[in-house]
Structures are given as structure tokens and as C-alpha cells.
């Protein structure tokens, strides 16, 4: 047993000595890392530091970081990449959007290096390649706001989230009320006159309850009317009209989606991929 103890002690001493060693072949550089507060400071330094290889000292007032590293073992890019992956932009790397979004509120620094068109609408949806296009479209086609609100409502139903569905339905009814009929094209105008009342009726019913069952019942009729509208309105991206044979007590029901992959709003996770696309509207 004694020999084992000696061995262990030796190991501990050895590792202690090692961890205290200085960075060899050290090279020092200063550069800017974007951040806000003391919390940022500790995250940035923790992400950048690597035992024996690299150490980072960031100043929260000047936003200047001093990197000291072993030039034979690592380089500036590796350190900055680790810091960016922790959520902090530099002049070489942009942090992943989802990591930045998860930073505490006090750390949500201004991302000056990120191009504007991507930075603005980044949180609510991911990876829509045509953001700039969608925004322009919204100016010219106000029905898009209606459709977007409808899709948001549908997504809430997919997640079987009655509270969110109610809130999204409220948004939808606001969007519907805000439509200025006179700016619509003739085709759109005709259909709008026909379905507007129903749209508003079912939407308000959905927003009035948090019971997912009721919401889904009304969503069937809402979707039917929305389908008529979307058919005449020119959409930038294709919209898929989808059908689940089991909903509505086996009579089947439809809905609209921006994705071809089925995500069933009538059953949610219970039967998420039940259904098929019956029509692609372009």
C-alpha cells in the first residue's frame, strides 16, 4: 500500500508542477473583441485561455484583449475562434447566432461587424435565405403579414402550446384588421371580401381560448379560408397545402405550411408527421 501512496503523491506533485508552468515561446498581441460587461470578461477569458498554451486578458472599457500564447503550439485564429464560439465577435470571427442569442441580457453587445440585413430579424426564424426579399415584399404586399401570422399560429399548434396559439391568433386578428383593402389587387380584393369575416371570426375564437382542442377545431375552418386567399395572392416562396386524413374525427382536415415536410398542427407531437402535401402553391 505504501508504494502506491508514494506513486500517487509523486503523480500529484508532478501535475501540480506542470499546471504552474509558464507559457513558452510566448508571443503577445492586442486586438479588439466585442463585449459589454464583467460577465463578458470572464466568459471571453475563460474561452480563450488554454493551460500552458494561451492566456487572454480583456479590458471591458477599451474592449481590447491582450493575447499571450505559445506560438509553436497555437495561433491567434484558434484563440479568437474559441472566443467567438463562446458568443463574442472579433474582427476575424462572428459568433454563431444561436450562441449570441443565448448570452445573458447584459452581455448582448452591439454586433457592429455583422451585416445589417442578417442581424435584424435573426431571432424569430432561422436560416431564411431571402430575408431582404421578404422585408421588401411586406411593404408591397400587406397580406404577407397575415400569412406570416397564420404560420406562427400554426407553429404554436404544432407544438401543442395553447397559450402561444392564443397570443399568435391575437396578432393575426390585428394583421387582418390592418389590411387596407384598396391596395389589394382585384383578385385579392374579391376573395378578401368573401373570406375576411370568417377569418376574423375564427381567429378571434382561437385567441379567446387556451384550450388546444377548441383552437384546433377553429383552425380547420380558418385554414380553409386562408387557402382561398393564398391561392390568389402571389407569394415569393412556395406554400404547401397539406392534409391529415385523421383529423376532424376521421373526416380529414387541411392546413398551410411553408415547408414541404409535414408537421401536423392538429396532433402535434402525438402524430407529428401524419399527413401529406396535396398542393404546392407558387
Amino acid at each position, binding site marked *: 500500500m505504501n*508504494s*502506491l501512496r508514494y*506513486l500517487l503523491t509523486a503523480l500529484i506533485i508532478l501535475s501540480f508542477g506542470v499546471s504552474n508552468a509558464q507559457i513558452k515561446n510566448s508571443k503577445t498581441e492586442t486586438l479588439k473583441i466585442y463585449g459589454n460587461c464583467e460577465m463578458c470578461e470572464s466568459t471571453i477569458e475563460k474561452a480563450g485561455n488554454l493551460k500552458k498554451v494561451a492566456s487572454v486578458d480583456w479590458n471591458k472599457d477599451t474592449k481590447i484583449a491582450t493575447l499571450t500564447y505559445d506560438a509553436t503550439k497555437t495561433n491567434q*485564429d484558434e484563440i479568437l*475562434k474559441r472566443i*467567438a*464560439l463562446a458568443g463574442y465577435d472579433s*474582427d*476575424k*470571427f*462572428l*459568433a*454563431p447566432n*444561436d*450562441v449570441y442569442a443565448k448570452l445573458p441580457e447584459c452581455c448582448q453587445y452591439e454586433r457592429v*461587424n455583422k*451585416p445589417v*440585413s*442578417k442581424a435584424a430579424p435573426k431571432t424569430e426564424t*432561422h*436560416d*431564411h*435565405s431571402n430575408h431582404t426579399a421578404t422585408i421588401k415584399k411586406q411593404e408591397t404586399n400587406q397580406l404577407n403579414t397575415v400569412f406570416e401570422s397564420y404560420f406562427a399560429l400554426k407553429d404554436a399548434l404544432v407544438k401543442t402550446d395553447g397559450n402561444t396559439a392564443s397570443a399568435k391568433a391575437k396578432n393575426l386578428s390585428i394583421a387582418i384588421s390592418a389590411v387596407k383593402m384598396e391596395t389589394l389587387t382585384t383578385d385579392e380584393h374579391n376573395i378578401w371580401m368573401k373570406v375576411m369575416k370568417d377569418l376574423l371570426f375564427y381567429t378571434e375564437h382561437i385567441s379567446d381560448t387556451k384550450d388546444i382542442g377548441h383552437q384546433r377545431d377553429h383552425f380547420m375552418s380558418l385554414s380553409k379560408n386562408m387557402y382561398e386567399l393564398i391561392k390568389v395572392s402571389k407569394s415569393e416562396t412556395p406554400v404547401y397545402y397539406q392534409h391529415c386524413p385523421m383529423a376532424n374525427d376521421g373526416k380529414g382536415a387541411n392546413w398551410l405550411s411553408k*415547408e414541404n*415536410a409535414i*408537421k401536423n398542427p392538429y396532433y402535434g*407531437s*402525438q*402524430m*407529428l*408527421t401524419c399527413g401529406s402535401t396535396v398542393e404546392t402553391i407558387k
Partner: protein
Amino acid sequence: MDIQNLFQKKLLPIALLLLATTSLFAQKVVRYDLYVTDTLVNYAGKEKRAIAVNGQIPMPTLTFTEGDTAEIVVHNQLKESTSLHWHGVFLPNKEDGVPWLTQKPIEAGTSFTYRFPIIQHGTHWYHSHSGLQEQIGMYGSFIMKKRDDDKTFRKGIDDLATVPIIISEWTNLNPDNINRMLHNANDWAAIKKNATQSYAEAIREGHFKTKLTNEWKRMLAMDVSDVYYDKILINGNHTSDLKTIDGKILKAGDKVRLRISNGGASSYFWLRYAGGKITVVANDGNDVEPVEVDRLIIAVSETYDIVVTIPDEGVSYEFLATTEDRTQSASYFIGNGIKQLISPLPKLKYFEGMKMMNDMMKMNGDLDDMGMKMSLNQMDMNVVMYPEITGDAKQKQDHSQHNMDDAPHRYDANALGEITTLNYAMLQSPHNTTLPKDAPVKELKFTLTGNMNRYVWSMDNRVFSETDKIPVKKGEVLRITIYNNSMMRHPMHLHGFDFRVINGKGEYSPLKNVLDIMPMETNTIEFLANEEGDWFFHCHILYHMMGGMNRVFAVDDYQNPYLPNKKQAYNKLQRESNMPHIMVQNDFATNGNDGEAMVQNARWSLGTEWRLGYNDMHGYEVETHFGRYIGKMQWFMPFVGFDYRYRKMGMDEHETNLFGQKNKKDTRSAFSLGFMYTLPMLVNFQAEVYHDGIVRLSLMREDIPISKRIRAGFMVNTDKEYMAELSYVLNKNMGIRTHYDSDMGFGVGLSLSY
């Protein structure tokens, strides 16, 4: 040359006739000279041996246009033989590049010419088919372009700027050594990957019962892959920038087509892009209807053509290839400017995976899909381990997930998550791929089998060396149904043909030449066997292929000019697929030497164990066993043995075993007959009868994973001997071991293994 002349004579008038309407059809010979040499590389901190072709790794990209004739001259400047296989390429069998199946190996110092017409288009690759050479550099892209007048030419896809990409892995270990370690269930790779899944870790994560059940079902800790790699490479680099294509600077709005091949020996890669969705436009060199996804996994040896867009000016977007076990990745930055990163994939929840395996594994080692008809990668059992889809490990315990556990979609990544992952059911060919209706159909069924503990991989529980070629008549349709009853996924690759994957797209079923089959999946493929020859069909994970997961389809009786004696050649090929591997281990302890040495192949095992004391009292003991593993799981091994022992016991001291049998001799040599059986909890039960009538029963268990690096073990037998041990793993060949032995007492030592 005769053939070429003939072609020119016959085709020239026709071409002239057609000249008025179409462009000239030229019979162009494209020649490449490939010089294969040994080289030293430093990819991961150490100088190691690798193989370079024309001085580079990966091998040069070979580019052809449909209608060309390829002439590739291989100059072997290695000290060993080599070969090159053209993966996914339609060609005469003798050009297929499988040593001892379609040609003789290209011996050291000799040259060999491959020559075949290019009769297809698409993204393919090429690699050595000799031993493990592919692991150390012998892989490269093989691109066949469409002719501009091709009817299937797709505007907006086929005219995009294109980059060939080949992904591979690098390890500082010698691949032969990796192969050996896999067979010896060495868990060094798991330690490196932080995936030991020991009892201590299980308890910390509240999964003690899961671990216990797992061992009860005789499973070793599982990972999604077995080999630890030091670096992942894209076109030979860990990180690279793509700023221009063909001299044109990339800018916002540009679309880039990446022709990606997975040239890794055993790794699957997740492919993700920081600049938005990925559009998949081709798979295994065959066009598919464009499909937009957030990510896809590329199986070993598959190819995908994808299109990505550069959204903003002044930014370059990371294209990230991450190994399936998520320990390593390689980056490729597309565009000019500041680098937009994509977040790395979170660590796998190993114990969730273990729990899932427990549910699926029956006591006899078969898998039970619990009524889920799994196919085409649609249900990925591993999603239970993916935090980005099923939530973080800690959060999960708060949410009551009971309702989820019975839901039919609990393994369907696309249903559970917000992101879309590609699966084979989403692939659709742009044109009709149906096979001739009048062709006779030959139905075949294969069950993929194997066991992790001894790393034996087979089909229908027979390794390659135990099977003959499967005869097929030319013109037959082969319809093959494959069921994966093993615990690992297998990318099954067919030489010489594309097969249709029956995926619900009917006449537009996609064409592929590699099909990844996950555990418990059943998939059906079919193809028209219209080219005669011996075609290899195998798992493309190099270490599974070397373990015997192969078959050969012999279409008609092909006379191969390179192999006059086909029988003898086939025997050679079989022998190479079942090479014996060696394991040696010795503990240099204060009370003596304990050790063992073993030579094993897929079925047979010759092993000897020794205990050598430092004095006569402690004695010297050697036990040798020669046995054969029986059954798919190889839990049962009958053996014949020989024991030798010498020890000085002192006056009138006898040993009596539990059965009252006495053993008086200090020096004893005995033959024995017995068997070993693996009990639940991975305890080995061994029973032997010696020629002098003495019976010995023993129970033992080695390598109980206590913590990440601590292993325990014990042995008791009816000779009233017992032993308990505890060891600490220092590295892949070394450990500190302490044990107590009834013969030799307490000891501490350094244990070395090879």
C-alpha cells in the same frame, strides 16, 4: 488501340452526320500518371508515415467528361503492393481495382494501367483497396462532368461554380494497430473521446441502473463510432478558405456547388453551413430533385452534391464537417471577409443511448425493433443522444417525458426538432429509374451481423472467408433486402452498379451505390446485373470490411485476363480478410509476473496465460487454450488446453478443491477439455476437465469500468484460488495495476499491453 481505331472508323461518319444538329462527339483519351510514394506527414503534432500520390494527400482530383476514355497509369513506388478502386464508376470488371478479385496487386516497383470508357457523370471518388492504405492518404475525388449537350443538364445547378471536396480523418496511430486494438476491445479510444461510460459516470448522471442493465445484457459501452481520430481534414486541411473559384472572386448572392465525397475510413460526418439551408442536388453521383435541409449526415464512402448560397457581402460562412461522435471537425470557409461560425454540435448523451440500446437488445443478443418498421435513416435511434433535438441531459429529467416514450415519432429527428435532417426517403430521382419489367428477378436476403466485444462483422453470421461467391446470371434483376441486426450502422457499398433504393418514390426511386443501414433497419435495393464479372459488395467501414463483412456477386463466368486462376485468387482474398491478430499483456508486479498472449481470428483463438512468481513457493504456472468461438454473439467457446505448473509447497501440504479432488504434485502437466461461456454482467464462466480427472470451474470478469480510467477485475475458482485486481489506465499500452492473489499475495506493478 484496336478498339479505338474501330470506334473512330465507325463513329466518325456518324458524328459527321450529326454535326449539323449537335456538337461534335469526341473520343478523347484523358490520361493521368499517378506516382504512389511513401511520405512523412505531420497533421496532429507528430511525424507519421503516410502515402502520397504525386506528392499530395488527398490524391489528385481526376476530372473527366462523359464520353472520354480514362487512362490512368499507376506507378507503385512503395515497398508494398497497392491497387486503386474507382468508387461508383461503371467499368469492365478487370478495371475495378480489387486485388485478388479483379486483378493481381500492383507489386512494389511496378506500373499498371487502368483504361476504361467514361459512360456516366457525377461526383465519385477513388481509393486504394489494399489493406488499410486508404486510412493513410490514398483517397481522392473522381469527377465526371456532364456534356454540355446532355439532356439532363440542369440550368442553375450544373452550370454553377463547383468545388470538389473530399473529407477524411487522420490518426497518429498506425491503422494496423487500430485494427488490432479494436479486436482486443481496448478502450483507449473511448477514454480519449471521454466516452468510457463507466459506473462512476453513470452514477453521476443518475443512470446506474441503465449501466447495470447494459452489462447484464452483456454489452460493452457503445459509441456511435469506434476509432478516435486526431484530425479531420477537408481536401487535406483542417481549416481552409474558399475565396475564389476558377479565378472568380466569390460575392454575396453567389451559389456554390460542393461535390463532397466522404473518404474517411470509418467516420460519418454531419455537414452543416453557417449561411443558411443546404440544397442537396445529387447523391452518389446521381442527380436528385433538389431538396432543402438544415443538415445531413454523409456515410462512409457516400458522395453528395450540395448547393450553398453566400448571403451577405464581407462575410465568409463556415461549412463544418463534424464526426458523428462529435469529437472532431474540419472547417471550410466560403466567401470573403469576416468568418461567420456555426455552433459546434453538443456532446452526445451517452447514457440515453445506452438506455435505448438496453430497450432494443434482447437477452440472446438479437435486436428488437418493437414493431417500428425502420428504414431509410428516417428514424434515427441516436436522436435520444442529440441534445439539439431532444434537449440537454439535465433538463430532460425535469420534463416528464412519459407521453413521449410511446409516441411513434420518438426517434424521428425531423418530427421532434425544429431543423430538417436529410434522410433517404427524401431523395427522388428526376427521371424514371425502373428496371426492365421482363427481366427475371433473383431475390436475396442478408442479415448484417456482428459483435462488438470481439469486433467480428459478418453477413448472415458468416464472415467472408466462410462463404463462396454468389452466382448471378447476366440480365437478372437482383433484389436485395438487408436487415441490420447488429449494433452499429453499416454503409453497404456495391461495386460496378448503381442500385435503386426502394424508398416510396416509385418510378422515381433514387439511384445509389452506398446505402447506410442503421441498426434494426430493413431496406430493399434492386439493380440489373448487366455487366459480367466479380463484383464486391461490402461494408465500407474499413475495419468492418477487414473483419469480413463482404460478399462477391459473380455475374456469369467472367474470364479475367489478369487472373487466370480465379479459385486461387479468391482464396487469397479470403485469407486477407481474416488475418490473425495478436495481443500480449504482462504485469510486472512486486509479487510476480501476470500476463497473457493471444492470437485470434474471427473464429479461432489460441491463448496462453501465465503467472510467474519470483520464488518456488509462489510457483510458476502456464495455461494454454485453443478454442473456437461459437454463435453470432460468440459467447460460447469450447477449447482444448494444456496446463503446466511448478511450485514447492513444503511438507505434506496438499491442495484440495471444492469437489474433494486432491492435487499432490508440485510439478504438474495436464491436458484439458473445457469451455468458456460469457454470462450476463460479462462474467466469463470457464469449466475444464483435466486428463487426470481433476475438474476446475472458474468465474472471472476483467475490465469493469469503475471510472473513466479505473478498471477492476476478479477471478475465483474451485481450486480455492482467487484474485482481485484494480488498475489505472495510463495510456493505450500502459497501466498501473494492483492485485491480490491467493497464491502470490499482494502486488503492485506496471502492466504493459500490446
